[in-house]
């Protein structure tokens, strides 16, 4: 659900600094008077568009694909001015309400003028949320803008100014798989971020993470999280330590539930450790490897637990258990592979292997309970499936031997019959 709504919220990003209220909007910025049925072929813009189609600022070109243009919203809704005048001086003359290029604060004001207007949005996009502005005010971007920092992101920074597209449009900068690059455009720019005292390697780390690979390489736009799924979009801010489990738990709900019920949850809280992040990291979240487990120096558990401690022993149990399970998988695959190469049907064994693999996946999740009895129960289930797979494999090889033995016997029998017939042929009366 978050994946669906988050980019939708970004769609009409509104930045409004504390000193600029929505009620300060110019009267003509309201959208109630705009035509609602302007067609795509007849884009609104009047004389503004006529001129800007010939200028080098690409405004006219971008306007062709803009969702607002296609909804019949004209230039003067944001910029003011008189779009009926073919002379630019007359179009921008005092009294025409011309506001020119909007400042960061004005952009937020202008977008928010419509997108936070409940009555207006009901007539345009009834399903679109109208809380972008409120959320933006709580974001780091919004807070800094309120303090006068104009380099922070506002609506146009993410959505663009004159080429705003629907969030589910793959060309939109806020389309799920484009979000990391959009955020990274600023947050990965060392020079740009110099004055903000925050790291700039988030994007580089993200693209190497399991989430980044799922989103950017496998194009899993529905399942894999982008920046906004954890940080929020219009209310973008670094998550607090207390919120980490809830944020990760949005998708990894069972892991979060197990962790919060585990003895580690209160211990983490006591030490002010960020639950999931303490072990898995933030942006560079990778698959769990064997190096993670165990009680060797460098292993994850050894960050807090010394050798010989209860926690370290549990880590060792996990390591040995998972290692044993993995080794068994190797033996099973070799056995089933051998039987299959020899033409035996081992699909039943493969079903057991699949069930065991599912069990292993569940066991990995169960680790978050940090409970040996819970894990033992699951391990027994995995072992039973692995044993059943082995049984199928050995039975297949035995059956193969039986088949060959049967073939040898039947061959002998057929050979005997063939000889009998051959002898009979020789005893037949000679041909003329």
């Amino acid at each position, binding site marked *: 659900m978050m994946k669906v709504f988050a980019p939708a919220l970004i769609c009409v990003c509104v930045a409004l600094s504390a000193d600029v209220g929505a009620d300060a909007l110019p009267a003509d910025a309201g959208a109630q008077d705009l035509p609602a049925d302007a067609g795509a072929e007849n884009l609104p813009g009047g004389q503004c568009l006529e001129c800007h189609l010939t200028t080098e600022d690409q405004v006219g070109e971008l306007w062709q694909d803009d969702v607002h243009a296609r909804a019949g919203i004209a230039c003067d809704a944001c910029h003011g001015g008189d779009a009926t005048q073919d002379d630019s001086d007359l179009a921008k003359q005092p009294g025409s309400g011309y506001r020119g290029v909007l400042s960061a604060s004005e952009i937020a004001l202008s977008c928010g003028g419509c997108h936070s207007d409940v009555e207006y949005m009901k007539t345009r996009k009834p399903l679109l949320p109208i809380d972008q502005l409120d959320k933006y005010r709580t974001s780091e971007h919004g807070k800094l803008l309120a303090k006068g920092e104009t380099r922070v992101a506002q609506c146009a920074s993410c959505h663009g100014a004159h080429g705003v597209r629907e969030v589910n449009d793959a060309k939109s900068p806020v389309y799920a798989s484009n979000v990391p690059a959009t955020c990274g455009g600023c947050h990965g720019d060392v020079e740009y971020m110099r004055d903000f005292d925050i790291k700039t390697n988030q994007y580089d780390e993200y693209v190497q993470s399991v989430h980044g690979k799922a989103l950017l390489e496998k194009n899993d736009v529905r399942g894999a999280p982008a920046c906004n799924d954890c940080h929020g979009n219009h209310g973008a801010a670094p998550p607090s330590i207390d919120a980490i489990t809830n944020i990760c738990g949005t998708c990894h709900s069972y892991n979060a539930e197990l962790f919060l019920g585990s003895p580690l949850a209160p211990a983490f809280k006591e030490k002010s450790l960020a639950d999931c992040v303490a072990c898995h990291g933030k942006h560079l979240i990778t698959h769990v490897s064997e190096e993670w487990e165990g009680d060797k120096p460098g292993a994850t558990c050894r960050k807090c637990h010394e050798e010989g401690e209860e926690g370290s022993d549990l880590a060792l149990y996990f390591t040995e258990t998972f290692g044993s399970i993995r080794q068994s998988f190797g033996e099973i695959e070799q056995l089933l592979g051998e039987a299959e190469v020899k033409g035996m049907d081992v699909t039943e064994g493969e079903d057991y292997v699949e069930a065991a693999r599912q069990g292993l996946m569940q066991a990995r999740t169960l680790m978050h309970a940090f409970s040996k009895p819970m894990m033992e129960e699951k391990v027994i289930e995995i072992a039973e499936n692995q044993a059943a797979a082995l049984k199928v494999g050995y039975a297949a090889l035995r059956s193969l031997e039986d088949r060959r033995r049967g073939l040898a016997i039947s061959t002998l029998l057929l050979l005997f019959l063939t000889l009998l017939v051959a002898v009979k042929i020789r005893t*037949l009366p000679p041909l003329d």
Partner: protein
Amino acid sequence: MSTSPENPERSLLAWARDRYPIAKFAEWAKHKTVPIGPGAFWYYFGGISLFLFLIQVGTGILLMFYYKGSVDTAFESVRFISAKVPFGWLVRSAHAWSANLMIFSVFIHMFSVFFMRAYRKPRELTWLSGIVLLALLLGFGFSGYLLPWNELAFFATKVGTDIIGVIPVIGDPIMYVLRGGEEVSGSTLPRFFALHVALFPALLTTFIVGHLFFIQLQGIHEPDAWTAHPEQRKTMPFFPHFFMRELLLWLITLNVLGVLAVFFPAELGIEADPFSSAPAGIKPEWYFLSTFEFLKYMPAHVGPLEGEEFGLALISIGFLGWCLVPWIDRGRNPLITRIVMVAGAAILVFLTIMTYLGHTA
């Protein structure tokens, strides 16, 4: 002959003799002969084909005990037959291998008849009924291949029915009827099943009976040279001489079938998914490979025709010519005979090369 109760067999025979013309049949069988010539060995392939057909019928009936011909159950039922049913793997493998061996044997039989010029008068209908039998067997193979509902069969059927769809005018309706819709789908399987276990067996049995009837009526073709040199004529009694030799070959065939079934059991692969993309290297069964490969070499267009249409037109003309061979070569003109024989050899070489190329492609 005694009909006493102490000898039940004899009494049963006597009972039958009293009612049926068994003596006449025995007399006929006693005098039935088979010519012995340089090509006599090839005569046995007709009988081998018949033997393999009987195995097909037997194993097919056994498979039907467990097979469930619907999309949701077909694959699992075949898997069940292979994995769980006692000797199910053997029955399925024997069915699959005997089908292939039977088509191979029929091809040998047909070409041996061709090169011995046994198609000539008065055996024109024997030749035609033989061609119909081959066509029916190919239909058997094509329809049976889909029944396990695995991925390879699914896409091979798609390719095969696509080719049928290329035939002008009638191709599309035939393809539609075969598929039960625009595409190979769940509707196709029951149709192929019905063809495989009802229509084709009925037609095949009818034509086999007709084919054998013609052979019994006219006798087995004798070498042409005997007409000019009757002193060379040499025959053997069908019973028991020829029959015992045939039986010997049947036993060997059965053993070969057993070896193939044990060492190369029929594979099942993965279940068909109509919504997945076709895996690379999809090919039809070997007996369709030559046609499949030949069509691949066709250019995009030949005159007003699509390349595949042109290819199918060539194949159709060739097939028609093959059917009409008894009327083309009546044995009156040695030049025509020579041309027909060379054409037959060329067709054999062509089919072999195309099959090889298709196999290695």
